[in-house]
């Protein structure tokens, strides 16, 4: 189940200053890149789509996902997945429990849930990791668990908040292609926020600033 993510005149103001102005659509399997220096409003744009903006900001415009207006929905009802700069795995849960947390209640029965988690671990080359403490995993393994956790929640769109910037150079390309290929396979519209031109090139989609201007790479 995929569809288009539309930002219709989405503007965010902090006081009088406009920090985000986006009017565009992201097709299924397409990765839109928002690029800019730190503090330019990239993460604010994601928070507006996610529904987690602090009250200090004022928002205009609409966010439409698969034809559904999600502008005023609380974050947990938007079905928008999010990957952070860090993996943000829940430290008190095992790898398997982290994945199970994301699995929708519609997947019923202990065996079915267990099977879904094992399948996700297999897909990330992490077979047999369910009982592990996330703190004992390598950076690359943690990043993969974080992505699989996000996908298990069956989102209709994906937001990537500089998810590769903390990884070291050797790991970076590998995790990036893993994430991007999963996005394309699942046919999800995705928005990537980054300050790294290499990420934008790999994403392959349009590249804009938080204020909507096209960015030349």
């Amino acid at each position, binding site marked *: 189940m995929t569809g288009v993510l539309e930002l219709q005149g989405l503007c965010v103001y902090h006081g009088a200053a406009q920090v985000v102005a986006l009017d565009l659509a992201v097709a299924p399997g397409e990765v839109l890149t928002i690029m800019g220096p730190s503090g330019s409003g990239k993460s604010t744009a994601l928070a507006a789509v996610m529904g987690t903006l602090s009250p200090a900001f004022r928002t205009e415009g609409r966010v439409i996902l698969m034809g559904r207006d999600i502008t005023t929905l609380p974050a947990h009802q938007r*079905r928008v997945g*999010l990957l952070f700069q860090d993996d943000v795995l829940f430290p*008190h849960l095992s790898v398997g429990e982290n994945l199970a947390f994301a699995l929708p209640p519609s997947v019923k029965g202990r065996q079915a849930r267990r099977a879904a988690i094992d399948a996700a671990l297999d897909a990330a080359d992490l077979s047999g990791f369910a009982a592990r403490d996330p*703190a004992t995993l390598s950076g690359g393994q943690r990043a993969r668990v974080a992505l699989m956790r996000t996908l298990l929640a069956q989102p209709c769109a994906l937001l990537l908040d500089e998810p590769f910037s903390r990884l070291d150079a050797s790991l970076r390309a590998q995790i990036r292609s893993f994430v991007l290929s999963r996005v394309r396979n699942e046919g999800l519209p995705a928005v990537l926020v980054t300050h790294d031109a290499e990420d934008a090139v790999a994403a392959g989609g349009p590249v804009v600033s938080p204020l909507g201007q096209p960015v030349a790479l």
Partner: protein
Amino acid sequence: MSTGGLLRWAPRLTLALLVVPVAAGLLGTVIPAFSQDAKGLRALLDWPGLPRAAILSLTTGVAATALSLAVTLLLVASLWGTRAFALIQHMLAPLLSVPHAAAALGLAFLIAPSGWIVRLVSPWATGWALPPDLLILNDPYGLSLTLGLVTKEVPFLFLMALAALPQTDVTRRINVAQSLGAGRVAAFVISVFPSLYRQLRLPVYAVLAYSMTAVEMAMILGPTRPYTLSVQVVIWMADPMLTGRATASAGAILQLALVGLALGLWVGSERLARRLLVYLAEAGLRAHGLDPVARWVAVVAGALTSGALILGLAGLAVWSVAGLWQFPDVLPESLTLRTWLRAAPDLVSTGGVTLGIAALATALSLALVLACLEAEHRFALLPGSGALWVLYLPLLVPQVAFLPGLQIAALRSGAEGHWVAVSAAHMVFVLPYVFLSLAPAYRAWDSRIAVAGMALGATPSRVFWRLRLPMVLRPVLTAAAVGGAVSVGQYLPTLLIGGGRIETLTTEAVALSSGGNRRLIGAYALLQMILPAVGFALALLVPALLFRNRRGMSVAS
């Protein structure tokens, strides 16, 4: 969002729970003092002990506060960053959890004419074969009372200083000031102290208000002819003739005024101290010679206050298992469990009541505090400085000033003498401590976890129960242990709201203190101390056990 609606009300409900009892209690105290031609007030003024009792309240309270603050600051200034400092940090929680009554009883055992200190030096040094006839305990100047207060307030202020220090950038400021030529103590006083004290002010005011009006400590250690004003008020309260009640109310109002006066004087001296500091800084204070002296004084004062507390408690423990123990033997001739066995049925039932009251007050306080903090997080509320003052209100207004009024309310409503009513009264004091203990850790929680959870489709309440609560389990349990310790240690609310019919370990220990059965006092006081200690131990053990396979949940991270 029905839960959201309820949750939104939690902060206001909590503030009301703190303000209403204090305000209503004060009102209930003022009215009897001035009713019937101010009969109570006139009886109070006719009491010959009044000037001395009032002065004692001021002198012991101000001296205890100034000394506690000085010792705390000296310890922080000269030991910050050393190994000794880390050691003190570890000793703090257990020392803090000792109820005031147990600390006072232990100290009494230590310094009494027949206590450990005299025994240690007798008869070889003193020639005493019998306990000397000296008024060490209950001395007329309130010196033992002041010492007792200091042993309990230093750990409290030290903990508050520890919480404030990370926000004051201590290490860098001291380094900079020292590189400019100042000695260590001078560097601390000029570069760290002003911002540290700004955050210590409310706790210091609370210490001042408490020290001036302490009841159970003053009953055990304080002067007796006359008693301190607060103790006398409690005695009047217990007067079977109802005339005492009006006098007690008038005394309580005077006590409140005295605390107000002392706070005013304290704030005035803060101003003077600020000018002095600016003058010293401009004069280029170096004071290198002060450093070794200060360090020495700090170590001695710290060792003295904690040592007195620890030795006193050890004395309680030994007495509770002592067989024959004659003066001047340092240790009993034999050890026996007879006291414990004989008192066991009473200890169990009294301990059960104590635990039940503490459990209810702590559970309700914890639920309210969690609701407040969660509401603050979900609705992005910013608590103002007014909220902090309200939180401190029950600690700043003397218990003896508003509990008498509250007792009248309890009497009228028929709630007096029921353990649930006692528990509710405890909540007024438990709640602030639970909040102060839990809030920093709760607010420091990584809020990206909440965003991650919601992005996975989890409702805010699922995020709370499955992610946030387990992740802050350690501070939650510590706050619960703090709350439990506060409840176990409450004397006056238990006595007044319980109408003398609810017996807890604390009221029993204080009641026994006037009698001579040291073995039984030892047993009660020890149990009174063990309950909170068990709470703190559980707060450490349970998370360690639950998360033993989760490296990301270890203390360091």
